């Protein structure tokens, strides 16, 4: 499976400071799993405004972890909720984003 994460940005940003990179990856790991569960719950309960808020707050995380596809998908989900368009495809998109987060957890834990 193709890797969806890249630490190139963090390496560049921290000028190769391993301690800071590990700190940020650790913070991502400790929040991402919980957020993915929250995505599913909020989607199931149709609490779209709260879903939008959490998806929005995760966009910088995707930037830091080099997850460009996840960032783009998060933007699509956010725009879809704000503009109330393509709501029928939202569960599928949210599932796709959750799958990406789960894959990122596997990649970043190794």
């Amino acid at each position, binding site marked *: 499976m193709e890797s969806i994460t890249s630490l190139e*940005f963090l390496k560049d*940003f921290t000028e190769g400071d391993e301690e800071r990179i590990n*700190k*940020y990856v650790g913070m991502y790991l400790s*929040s991402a799993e919980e957020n993915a569960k929250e995505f599913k719950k909020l989607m199931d309960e149709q609490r779209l405004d709260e879903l939008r*808020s*959490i998806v929005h707050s995760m966009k*910088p*995380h995707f*930037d830091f972890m080099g997850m460009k596809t996840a960032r783009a998908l998060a933007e699509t989900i956010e725009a879809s909720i704000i503009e109330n368009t393509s709501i029928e495809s939202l569960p599928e998109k949210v599932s796709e984003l959750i799958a990406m987060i789960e894959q990122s957890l596997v990649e970043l834990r190794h």
Partner: protein
Amino acid sequence: MKSELKRKLELFIVDDDALSMSVLGDYLKKKIGSNLEVHEFDTGETCLAKIAERTPHIVVLDYHLDSKTQTAANGIDILKKIMAHHPEVTVIMLSGQAKIDIAIETMRLGARDYVVKGETASLHVSQIIKSIVEAENQADELRNYKVGFWIAIGIMILLTIGVIVLYTFFPEHTKHLPM
């Protein structure tokens, strides 16, 4: 370096996302220097409570602050309160949305700048802070020059008075001096 801090600068960061706040705070401490004191707040309300007892120079304020606490006030409301009670504080707004109308609204309410969150946000915020530091350093230098100028003028006036007194009241002591 001109943008080096010559005195302590206190900076508050308000963001409901711990990772973003940590990334920005660490970056600023590294780039601006040890005279920058950073305090982090995950809601605007906790930041306002702190401002009431200790006013910072700069607040970096996120626009959306409700991802963890749904009832938390948003960045615009916090900006309005800061500007109403502490207009001397420089506020830099952060947002995940590159929307010109939001940017204009925040600037109209008194924010100095509007930075879109993303890979280059930390760099932009640090550049803004450096420009603030440079302006403050220049203002300090100008103040020092003015003080120095008036001290020099004062010394010259005192010397002139001294010479006049000497020539007027003690002419016998000035015979050997040039006129």
